[in-house]
């Protein structure tokens, strides 16, 4: 009889032998032990004891399978949708609200203290305050240092908000410069993430805005009938596109262009604007990306301390969304699916060496790992301290960094750690 035939012959006997073992009715683990086993948080001795019992007790195996079904449902995006309180509460998240408010106030103060900006050149008055609609979120948007007419305001609000239907309404911005900041804020808030600081316009610091304003040659005026003529290039990041560039407007003295929300480039002023944009964009992009919240390495396994975690596949992204939520995108950030591995955890960094492999670290020694992009398990930490970074090379190998700079490395999924020198 061949080896395979003997295996088949033994199969029926195995079923009877495993199913017929006595003594399994007693000693069933309590729900707390079963739940802890399911979460892989029992120690080795307890795990072996529970598994020995499970191998003999069909009732407990059925319970565990039922528990697995419930956990799978809980891990699905619909089930992990945040409660309404969270959806609304992110609007009042001080992490983005305070910087936006600061920018608004500073730009308002700057605008009121720059009398030269209130002068309106003759030629700019003659030009219509045309505000062609941008075709999409990726179209360049020109900032205007003026108080646009009411119609323009509405168009501006609708166009900038268009890329993100779920974005909150922009706060009113009476000052022209504040309009700009509001526009940027609206566009940036197109990011539905709960950790909006990664995309918030606060990354454009007041100093940067002041420097940009100093380069302008136009004028702005808070008066509704005083069109401004200045504009500049800015780069913002939206939900649906990596970069959306704001096309610069040429100097009003040279081309008489009037700022507005432009959907495209046409004519000499716009052509010059495009050229200026191309020149300015790289520098501004690098400035914008200098903020630590959004600095990421685009290679799998590289150190990532940002809330966006990249993988070797540019379409696969992870995002730490706050409140213990982790989100994953398979289309380069256009859409995100969220899970809630641990509602009490405060994640601060992650590393994804594979499309479905992701490590997360955070406060109080929390380390989580998923190998299938859905089920998370707790990895025993080397120390019960706050972790600030992690670099993972595979599902087994990773190096974590504590808040005080110590590094620990594991090559066996946290079964053992060695302190890095």
């Amino acid at each position, binding site marked *: *009889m061949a080896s395979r*035939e*003997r*295996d*088949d*012959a*033994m*199969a*029926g*006997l*195995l*079923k*009877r*032998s*495993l*199913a*017929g*073992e*006595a003594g399994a009715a007693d000693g*069933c683990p*309590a*729900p*707390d*032990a*079963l*739940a*802890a086993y*399911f979460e*892989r*948080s029992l120690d080795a001795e307890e795990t*072996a*004891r529970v*598994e*020995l019992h*499970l*191998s003999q007790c*069909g*009732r407990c*195996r*059925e*319970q*565990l*399978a*039922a*528990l*697995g*079904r*419930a956990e*799978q*449902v*809980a891990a699905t995006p619909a*089930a992990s949708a945040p*409660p309404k*309180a969270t959806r609304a509460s992110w609007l009042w998240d001080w992490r983005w609200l305070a910087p936006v408010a600061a920018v608004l106030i500073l730009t308002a103060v700057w605008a009121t203290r720059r009398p030269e900006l209130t002068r309106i050149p003759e030629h700019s008055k003659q030009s219509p305050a045309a505000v062609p609609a941008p075709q999409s979120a990726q179209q360049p948007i020109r900032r205007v240092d003026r108080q646009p007419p009411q119609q323009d305001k509405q168009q501006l609000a609708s166009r900038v908000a268009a890329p993100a239907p779920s974005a909150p309404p922009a706060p009113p911005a009476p000052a022209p410069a504040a309009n700009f900041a509001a526009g940027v804020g609206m566009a940036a808030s197109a990011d539905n993430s709960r950790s909006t600081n990664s995309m918030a316009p606060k990354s454009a610091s007041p100093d940067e805005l002041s420097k940009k304003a100093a380069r302008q040659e136009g004028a702005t005026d808070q008066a509704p009938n005083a069109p401004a003529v200045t504009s500049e290039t800015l780069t913002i990041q939206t939900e649906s596109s990596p970069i959306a560039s704001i096309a610069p407007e040429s100097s009003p003295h040279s081309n008489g262009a009037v700022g507005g929300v432009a959907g495209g480039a046409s004519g000499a002023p716009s052509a010059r604007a495009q050229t200026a944009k191309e020149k300015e964009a790289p520098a501004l992009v690098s400035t914008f990306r200098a903020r630590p919240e959004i600095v990421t390495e685009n290679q799998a396994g590289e150190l990532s301390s940002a809330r966006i975690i990249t993988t070797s596949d540019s379409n696969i992204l992870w995002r730490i969304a706050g409140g213990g939520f982790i989100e994953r995108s398979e289309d380069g950030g256009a859409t995100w699916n969220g899970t809630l591995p*641990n*509602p*009490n955890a405060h994640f601060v960094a992650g590393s994804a060496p594979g499309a479905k492999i992701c490590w997360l670290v955070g406060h*109080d020694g929390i380390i989580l790992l998923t190998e299938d992009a859905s*089920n998370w*398990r707790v990895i025993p930490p080397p120390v019960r301290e706050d972790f600030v970074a992690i670099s993972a090379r595979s599902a087994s190998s990773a190096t974590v960094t504590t808040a005080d700079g110590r590094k620990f490395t594991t090559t066996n999924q946290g079964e053992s750690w060695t302190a890095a020198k």
Partner: protein
Amino acid sequence: MTSRPAQPLAAADARRPENAPSPPSAELRLPAAFASTIDQCWRKAAAPADWDLSRVQFETALARSVAHRFSGAATQTETRTMRSYLETLHHPDLALACACSAGSEAAWEFFVAQFRQELYRAARAIAGSASGDSNSREIADSLYADLYGLRESDGRRKSLFDYFHGRSKLATWLRAILAQRHVDAIRRSRKLEPLEDESRAELSGIVEQAAANASAGSCSSRAAAGDPPDPDRARYCGMLQAVLSAALAALEPRERLRMAYYYVDGRTLAEIGRLLGEHEATASRKLERTRRSLRECVDATLHRDKQLSEAQVQLCYEYARDEWPFDLDATLRSAGAISSDGGS
């Protein structure tokens, strides 16, 4: 099946009678050596003020958890082990359970807001689509009643939260209770006896016959009436069974569990991987390795200890195949039907 809170730690209260039960409301205390650990746990719990949860109440919950985990052997367990255990607990969930058990309305409202819908979804997933929404709601609502504490004992409302010890997330613990109740209900209502009970009775008969070299009857109750008895058949079947049982007993618990998932429950490799926290390919590889090692062990034992020739060993397998044919497809189909019905 839940356990009654264990006896208070000997170091904490030596005056309590040995066999006296510890009501959950009793203030169990941990030794003074754990003060800093308790402070750390209390900070991590971060219980909101409106829950009216006192530090003493929380410490009692911690002490109860320790007592439950170490089952009265606390004095023998190293302090470091207990401290490490306390640090790994889910403190915020434990605080919530403690506050709810103590009757805090604010905590209960928070619990309902956070967990109610999730529990309904879990109940639907556990009970399965066949049982309908009403059945799953009934399971979830029954659990809610027990969590709130509709039963009273010794003048005190008894809440199921008393049995949460923070070893897992509160949500997982709740799902485990739902799963336990559902499976118990299904088993009570099953018309057919579970396979394990049936085969246990048969197996006992087989082994007894083989051990006593009985010649009456055959290995299986399905032996056709009128067939001539085959004493060698019974002997070989019993021998193979006994050797295999011994080999199974020597397996690691996880290996046995993997085999049970596959052969008894008919789980797919993907399901086994999920249940054991390993990749499907890993589950397949380990299953194959265990099966091969079992067969090699059985073959070696039959040759060496039972002094059987190769032909006789082959007969053992042939008789086993005839007596206990194993239809994997049927087992998988049956397991799939069970899963879709939510374990029914």
